[in-house]
């Protein structure tokens, strides 16, 4: 007989308690138990990054974390980005740069991009592309997303490179031809 477990966590800055079966993923916990549906389910096996959330100071795929594992930890979802004063600068930049179409990947990209800029505000295009390799988008072709992240970054110039130049740039010398 498997019983629900009582879990205490800090969710988007608020102390939060919930009951969850030990086999429920953090993704399922957020969406079905707590009712925060901003975090999206894409592949549900750790390939697409749509369900990215931050646990303490690291981004994770919430489909590959159990709800019970966040006991005592700080969890940040896309709902934790905007404040009553307005959108997070990344959200604003995603709108301005048209960095989304269908929107399913967007919460994951926002959470992952925020984690990068919090650590490395001056991250360059190469670093941003590398950091976001675990987030898939089938609509935008990525360039618009990268541009938005660069725009928010402290000193980086927004990318104006063509897709071909960008592809050439992100392959280090000696990489696969």
């Amino acid at each position: 007989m498997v019983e629900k477990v009582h879990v205490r966590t800090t969710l988007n800055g608020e102390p939060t308690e919930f009951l969850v079966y030990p086999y429920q993923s953090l993704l399922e916990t957020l969406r079905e138990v707590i009712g925060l549906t901003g975090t999206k389910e894409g592949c549900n096996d750790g390939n697409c990054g749509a369900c990215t959330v931050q646990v303490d100071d690291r981004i994770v795929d919430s489909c590959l974390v159990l709800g019970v594992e966040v006991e005592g930890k700080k969890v940040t979802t896309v709902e934790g980005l905007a404040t009553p004063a307005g959108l997070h600068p990344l959200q604003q930049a995603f709108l301005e740069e048209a960095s989304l179409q269908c929107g399913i990947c967007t919460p994951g990209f926002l959470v992952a991009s925020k984690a990068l800029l919090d650590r490395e505000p001056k991250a360059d295009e190469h670093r941003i592309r590398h950091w976001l390799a675990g987030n898939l988008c089938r609509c935008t072709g990525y360039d618009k997303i990268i541009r938005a992240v660069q725009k928010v970054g402290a000193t980086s110039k927004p990318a104006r490179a063509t897709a071909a130049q960008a592809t050439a740039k992100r392959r280090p010398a000696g990489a696969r031809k």
Partner: protein
Amino acid sequence: MHPFNYVAAKSVDEVTKVLAKHGDRARCLAGGTDLLVQLRAGVYELDAVVDIKTLPAANVLTLNGSLRMGSAVPCHRIYEDKAIAKAFPGIVDGASIVGGIQIQSRAGMGGNLCNSSPSADTVPGLIVHNAECVIAGPKGKRSVAAADFVTGVRRNVLKNGEFLLEVKLPKPDKGFGAAYERFTPRNEMDIAIAGVASSITLGANGKVKDAKIALAAVAPTPVQAKKAEEFLIGKEPTAANIAKASELAREAAKPISDMRGTVEQRKHLVGVLTRRTLTKALERAKEAK
């Protein structure tokens, strides 16, 4: 997913007791990036999952000449530590390319070993660094070389009640260098078609004192290219000798053809990657002299 109970382990005894009680219906949870996918796919049906991330002994990461790495230590802790990256380049190369950033937050070398996939990116690096696996079980601890840990696809030396507690890497000799490279169609987030880790130790006379070459994704387990290693030992580390060793390494590869690549392609890749990693290991060995 089959309903299972969750145990946040607090002691080594607790882990071995739960594992011994449930047999093959219990497994340890480290990063979970393989286990949770497999549970969802029905590969395992478990009654208990034992989280070893809550076990202090499995989270040790201490560099003191040699390196002690708890089995729950995630990849990012390894490659973000500059001193470890400098002293143990062969494992850092692998830790840096497992999945993307999200996966590297959770996945580690302990789980990579225990998942025992032929294409594991971090196991060849452990082999060429002469890593020892410390296994805890109901009868106490025992040690197994990383080269002998994996025994088949999803099979390893762990017996009922046992789990991998930590991996120990000896202090590299003077003049030691190592490297890992894999081939994937995409630069990130992909599974190796073939991978090779190499290490070279240069003697005072400039000749190769020791060499290790370990291959990934070209046999049911990671394999060592022993003939290539033996060929190099005692020789000058010239481009011609490295090329010859790379040819010999191809013979150690016993790959299959599957959706990722063919036998011919994988053998070819072993040759190319052996040459590249030996060359990089040599550069690093010269820097470390």
